């Protein structure tokens, strides 16, 4: 087990090196330059040269790449945003918690609705309810997130006015955020008003972002329960006279949770790697919308640092999923 983990960690090195090289080459292929994007029409050759010099963009490319590697790996320094002049690590500390909170909210929504839905669909196999759940989950993966987001915003924010449509908290709020996880902060500060405000802001984006995982969780749960239901041990449990409720809970659902847990891990990894569209629709200050803006602003350090960071998150989450899968399911041997 330990050998497997160590080997997998070593395998990450060439992948991350590849990502850094790919990102580096790509951003230098982008037309325009950060100096131009920053200065706009006021750009003079002198001011452009000054900005280029300040950020080391006048050096040869291989020198720039080497410096970027040394700084990133050696000093964990991702540079400074050319747009905001704030360190990239500072931005990530502020924005990644927002993305994590949104991803967890979306996953919580998907599981809370998807598992019961899939379970009862399988229990009532072939019934009207079963068919509706299949159609429902097909619709879930067919609706573009930004469309669903717009509709949710229109109904619950514009029309009914029940929920806020943008941001993470009330724009006028002046609260301290020690961890940048706003829900956690509200609890730490012992502020129920802030907690409610934060949760209210989280609801619509979570539903929009959770629509795809919801559909997937529903289908996997249904398939897994159908599979497990025909197993011998379930028949044995029934035969020995256990109440149906206990058979479902202890034997069927427990074993069906195996494939579901893999999906949860994989989907969480995907959600964490930047919900660009959801964050754009709901003006959510996360990593995805930040990187999207950085592409338009030609903010090289943000792109280099931010995409690298997301790549690390993505591969590490996938590794954790693989390991936890082996831990949960002893029948799987890692090779």
């Amino acid at each position, binding site marked *: 087990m330990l050998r497997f983990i160590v080997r997998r960690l070593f395998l990450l090195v*060439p*992948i*991350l090196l*590849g*990502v850094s090289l*790919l*990102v580096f080459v*790509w*951003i230098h*292929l*982008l*037309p325009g330059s950060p100096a131009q994007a920053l200065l706009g029409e006021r750009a003079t050759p002198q001011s452009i040269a000054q900005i280029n010099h300040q950020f080391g963009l006048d050096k040869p490319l291989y020198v720039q790449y080497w410096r970027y590697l040394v700084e990133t790996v050696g000093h964990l320094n991702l540079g400074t945003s050319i747009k905001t002049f704030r360190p990239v690590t500072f931005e990530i500390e502020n924005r990644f918690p927002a993305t994590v909170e949104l991803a967890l909210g979306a996953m919580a929504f998907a599981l809370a609705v998807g598992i019961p839905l899939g379970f009862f669909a*399988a229990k009532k196999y072939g019934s009207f309810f079963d068919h509706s759940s299949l159609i429902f989950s*097909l*619709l879930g*993966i*067919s*609706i*573009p*997130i*930004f*469309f669903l987001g*717009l*509709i949710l*915003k*229109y109904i619950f924010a*514009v029309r009914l006015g029940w929920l806020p449509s943008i941001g993470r908290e009330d724009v006028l709020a002046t609260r301290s955020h020690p961890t940048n996880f706003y829900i956690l902060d509200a609890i730490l500060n012992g502020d129920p008003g802030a907690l409610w405000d934060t949760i209210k802001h989280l609801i619509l984006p979570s539903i929009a*972002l959770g629509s*795809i995982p919801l559909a*997937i969780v529903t*289908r*996997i749960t*249904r*398939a*897994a*329960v*159908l*599979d497990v239901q*025909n197993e011998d041990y379930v028949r044995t449990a029934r035969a020995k006279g256990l109440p149906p409720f206990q058979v479902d809970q202890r034997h069927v659902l427990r074993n069906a949770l195996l*494939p579901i847990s*893999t*999906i949860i891990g*994989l989907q969480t990894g*995907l*959600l964490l790697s*930047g*919900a*660009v*569209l959801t964050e*754009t629709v709901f003006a959510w200050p996360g990593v*995805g919308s930040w990187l*999207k803006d950085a*592409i*338009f602003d030609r903010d090289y350090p943000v*792109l280099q640092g931010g*995409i690298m960071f*997301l*790549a690390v998150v*993505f*591969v590490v989450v996938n590794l954790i999923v693989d390991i936890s899968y082996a831990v949960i399911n002893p029948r799987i041997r890692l090779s």
Partner: protein
Amino acid sequence: MSVAEIEAREIQLEAPTGGLWADAWARLRRNPGALAGFFLVGSFVVIAIFASVMAPYSPTHVDLNALSANGLPTGPSWQHWVGVDQLGRDEFSRILYGARYSLVIGLVAVSSGLSLGLLFGSVAGYVGGFVDSLIMRFMDVMLAIPGLLLAIGLVAALGQGLWQIMVAVGITNVPIFARLLRGSVLAQREQDFVLAARAVGARRRGILFSHILPNAMSPVIVQGTLAMATAIIDVAGLGFLGLGPQDPGTPEWGTMLTQADQYLESGALYLAVSPGIAIVLAVLGFNMIGDGLREALDPKLRGRVGKFKEAKAEPPDGRLVPEVGESA
């Protein structure tokens, strides 16, 4: 029935009735979901081809007289079935023309991504060794970058425009197909018929093209259909982020949705709903066909043309466990 009779019957049921494709088609025909999918995609294609005949107005015809007194878009009426947009253009005609963009961009993107992925995947799977490692590590690198960001970045690097979108969406598809095909080829490589072909002295390329690839294709076809669905969403997503076709007047569904966003407050919901529903129906169609195809091409179900209901659930599949490329 005696045991022998039962066995004979089982063997008969297992036996393919008329080849993989005839079999699959027979099963597809009995699947109401797949039929509905064919209907949706069929209408989508017909609309895309005959948009100019079916549309009552030109999609780019600006008619400021059609706007309301205070210059806002107006809702459905007898002249304009789905209302007009902020420039008085007929929304219904724009939706019909929009089908062209989605269909063509999706088709080109998926087929180019598929062919490149096919090439990489089959070479990696069949040649193996160093080449395999090199190709697959490169695919891993591409997979580690979030798909939509990769697409946005490519469009930003190549400049806005139709073919740039096709390239961007196509490239995000390459690693998905490469991985799928490599796995499939690896599984086929060990089959007895490959050994037999090698034994009679067939050449490597010949074995790859005439024995391995045809047998490794069915998951690719399923994934290709589902990738069309994702591509349509991705193209609309790029349009929504302002990276659609260069001319903002192009009736592309995602671009239309962004523009509608500004009019939500004034209650012009139909401007967001109509392109949105168009996207959903097109995507739904491809997803339903993909689902149907997966069931129809499943080798475990082969030779049973709907006579026996499977007790087992459908296996978890590629589309439901997306590795990348889902736009969030």
